[in-house]
């Protein structure tokens, strides 16, 4: 498999040399844009945005490609390696972006981000597109994580207010389990399970430790062990749905999002793409009417800020050889009206602060509230530390939850991974 992939990379590299991208030469500029929405309002948003931009800039032509989300990373990697990369493309950030920067495949856009964009988006969000102080992507959407819950089920079980501390959460879980509605967890996909560890680590480790670990990739600070022990103690109360190890996250009514959508589970810990996923899994495929949000509760004794938030930011990058109009387009998609359109098309929080005023859903407002109150926002740890470490964390946490491994096993798995990458 790897061999085939390697072959395709080489094969295309061999014949990709003569196919230079058009650079702007005063005349018409053609650019290719890759995004991941293939149907519905999300795709419609991109079509309208591109059409509007072309109307305002008659010399620019943008070819829009909709690529299935799961296929995008692989296709993009092949295209980048072969020198036939799209000019503008979806950027997931973190370790992958760092690898692209290292291979000199991205355009440095540090000086091209306009003052208006900086003003509208803010320093904290823009940071998600930077590597070593230089900008290589602009964020378009913020996706902080936290608990998505059913207000009706909370009421039914006698939980009046969303838990604010770990003790509250434990008490709430006891009541909710008695009512037959546990926490949903899709551990078959592993990353939802790993998110639990990340959030405990966010509370246990200081911001400085999180950043330092991104560089050193060694997990020797005692806060990591502490986070693991806290997760183990919490998991030992058996708060999750029965058979969570073979439950997937997003596929079908039996998945964790499906359990929540059908009131079989009371909550799940997830990023803010979750409302859309849950909506697609309700019986009438409409948004869950009683959906609510609360941030990860405070955990006593940690070095992290109890109000800190973790989440990702989807962004867009320009390829190394893209024409300069590319960055102009990136500035354009950060303007207020386009961002409002993005929010409506994807039901996801826009990064432009003025556009955020257009958000009406109470649960998204709760997310925004938590986001704006947070003293700092950490990237998802698997994104921050790269695919290799994230993969090892996935394995270690699943083992811990299955009772096969211990906390030391997580740390060991991460250190083993360093040898492979």
């Amino acid at each position, binding site marked *: 498999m*790897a*061999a085939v*992939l*390697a072959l395709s990379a080489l094969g295309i590299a061999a014949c990709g040399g003569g196919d230079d991208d058009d650079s702007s030469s005063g005349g018409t500029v053609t650019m290719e844009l890759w995004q991941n929405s293939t149907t519905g309002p999300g795709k419609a948003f991109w079509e309208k945005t591109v059409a509007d931009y072309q109307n305002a800039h008659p010399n620019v032509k943008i070819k829009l490609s909709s690529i299935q989300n799961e296929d995008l990373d692989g296709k993009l990697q092949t295209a980048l390696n072969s020198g036939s990369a799209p000019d503008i493309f979806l950027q997931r950030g973190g370790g992958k972006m760092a*690898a692209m920067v290292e291979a000199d*495949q991205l355009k440095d856009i540090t000086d091209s981000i306009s003052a208006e964009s900086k003003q509208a988006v803010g320093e904290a969000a823009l940071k998600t597109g930077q590597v070593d102080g230089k900008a290589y992507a602009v964020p378009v959407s913020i996706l902080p994580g936290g608990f998505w819950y059913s207000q009706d089920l909370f009421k039914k079980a006698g939980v009046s207010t969303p838990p604010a501390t770990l003790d509250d959460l434990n008490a709430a879980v006891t009541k909710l389990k008695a009512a037959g509605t546990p926490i949903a967890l899709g551990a078959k996909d592993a990353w939802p399970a790993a998110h639990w560890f990340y959030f405990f680590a966010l509370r246990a480790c200081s911001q400085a430790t999180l950043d330092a670990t991104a560089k050193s990739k060694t997990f020797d600070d005692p806060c990591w062990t502490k986070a693991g022990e806290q997760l183990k103690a919490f998991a030992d109360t058996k708060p999750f749905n029965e058979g969570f190890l073979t439950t997937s996250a997003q596929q079908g009514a039996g998945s964790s999002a499906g359990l929540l959508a059908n009131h079989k589970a009371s909550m799940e810990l997830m990023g803010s793409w979750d409302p859309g996923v849950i909506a697609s899994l309700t019986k009438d495929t409409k948004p869950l009417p009683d959906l609510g949000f609360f941030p990860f509760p405070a955990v006593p004794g940690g070095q992290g800020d109890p109000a800190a938030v973790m989440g990702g930011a989807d962004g867009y990058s320009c390829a190394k050889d893209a024409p300069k109009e590319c960055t102009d387009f990136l500035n354009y998609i950060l303007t207020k009206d386009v961002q409002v359109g993005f929010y409506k098309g994807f039901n996801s929080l826009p990064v432009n602060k003025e556009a955020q005023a257009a958000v009406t859903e109470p649960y998204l407002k709760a997310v925004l509230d938590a986001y704006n109150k947070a003293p700092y926002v950490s990237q998802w740890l698997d994104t921050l530390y790269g695919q290799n470490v994230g*993969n090892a964390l996935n394995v270690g946490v699943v083992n811990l939850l299955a009772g096969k491994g211990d906390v030391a096993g997580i740390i060991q798995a991460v250190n083993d991974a360093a040898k492979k990458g």
Partner: protein
Amino acid sequence: MVADQVRAGGGEQPPPPARPRRRGIGWAQRLEILALSGPAILVFCTFVILPVLLAGYYGFYKWKGFGPPTNFVGLENYRTIMQDQAFREALEHNGLIVVLSLVLQGPIAVGLAMLLNRKMRGRSVIRVLIFVPYVIAEVIVGTAWALLLQTNGAVNDVLRSIGLTWLAQDWLANPKLAIWTLLLILTWKYIGFAVILFLAGMQNIPEELAEAAAVDGASYWQTQRRITLPLLGPTIRIWGFLSIIGALQLFDLVYIIWGQYVASTAGTSTMVTYLVNEGRNAGNYGYGSAVAVVLFIISMVIALVYQRFVLRRDTDGALTGGR
């Protein structure tokens, strides 16, 4: 045996007639050979030989898959593989699956083939039913079994509703059970293939042999044991070869049923799920290539050893030139 004979009496026998004729191949014939085998050789080299060589090349690097590989590490990837507990576990699971697939599927398939080789009512219906699981795509089979065997799935529901609550188990996630669940599914899925092979093999056994045995007063079981089974030998050995290679490369069913990560926790990981997990999911394409090379070598060695010691008598004439 043929080769031995030739060697034994080599001096006195005239040279085999094939040699002189080959020397005289004309241009037309060469062109014909080139035209007919060229495309196949080209495709084979491009999609089989070249990737293997490239995997060998990438296996010496630490490489994230972006840009050309630059970080040469020599044999370090291979050292890491050998020391990795997860790889050793995957190797053990593969070994277990290879052996138990033969042990479980072989006798059952021979029995079923004997049964279906007799004239009886509903024979073709049973043949179809046994063969159906083999025809269904792995992904569909995997998804169906994953749903049925979930903790809250249909299997446990049925067991509970007929009062066998104690038998309701965590079939997939329990590390003590999961490998057996996998073997059960594998047997169900691939038994049809073995049965069809054996049936075809039995059709090739001349009926006169059974008739002659019957005239001599042999019972049905004696006929099966002394005539059918020995003559079925070549078919069984070829099936064994296919089964071993398939078991070594087992991937799709495990990946669909257990997902990307739970397989190693549940104890059903295989070398290929390890390769996908550590190569593709972790983005370590250099390391993944090294794993691919190890997998290739292991499969190659087992295949050659099997060819040499088990298949030799069946393929003797075909592979050694002979007459």
